[in-house]
């Protein structure tokens, strides 16, 4: 009964490859997020979707493309992987509106991507 799940947990791949990370939440939330935790440990927002609509799109290379087939899923596809893409990627979800629930985000366990 995991609230926010991500697959895979670990991903090792070579430069130039294309890979996807999947995220699913069963909390009934309507908003989902992708964060990148870099080598300096900062958690930085990349994208956010509300009911399949993109609402936050930070300055991220266009090799990164989020896809939301429904409000419970937000996948991250990365084309032409580079060494600098190595990081831990976290998916999160929340409610867009609705009191305190709109402020708190719930995180998945993370996907450690290593590009060699």
């Amino acid at each position, binding site marked *: 009964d995991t609230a*926010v799940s991500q697959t895979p947990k670990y991903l090792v791949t070579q430069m130039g490859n294309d890979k996807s990370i999947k995220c699913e939440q069963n909390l009934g939330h309507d*908003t989902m997020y992708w964060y990148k935790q870099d080598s*300096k*440990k*900062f*958690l*930085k*927002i990349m994208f*956010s979707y*509300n009911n399949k609509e993109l*609402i*936050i799109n930070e300055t991220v290379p266009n090799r990164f493309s989020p896809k939301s087939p429904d409000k419970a899923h937000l996948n991250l596809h990365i084309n032409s992987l580079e060494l600098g893409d190595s990081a831990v990627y*976290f998916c*999160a979800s*929340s409610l*867009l*509106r609705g009191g*305190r629930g*709109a*402020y*708190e*985000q*719930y*995180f*998945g*366990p*993370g996907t450690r991507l290593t590009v060699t």
Partner: protein
Amino acid sequence: DQQVKQNSPSLSVQEGRISILNCDYTNSMFDYFLWYKKYPAEGPTFLISISSIKDKNEDGRFTVFLNKSAKHLSLHIVPSQPGDSAVYFCAASAELSGSARQLTFGSGTQLTVLP
């Protein structure tokens, strides 16, 4: 440009004593603040939060204090327990257009509680 700063990358405290973790922010648009706790190989989990209209929120052993004029918040854990050893992230929330909210995180403080 770090809008949320945690200047102490690590903190060690003896079991049973108080742990105080600090966080500073620069953006006046932040109106809600949260603390997350993170164990290795897991995602951050929500711990406690505070609205900008308050200056204190308490939940069991955890208390968050907010000083808006100083743009500073702190998390107090008392008494500290070995199971509290984790990385603690401070996060600040601001409303974007259309009621969407965005969290901005600090770089985290590794708390080690020594038995």
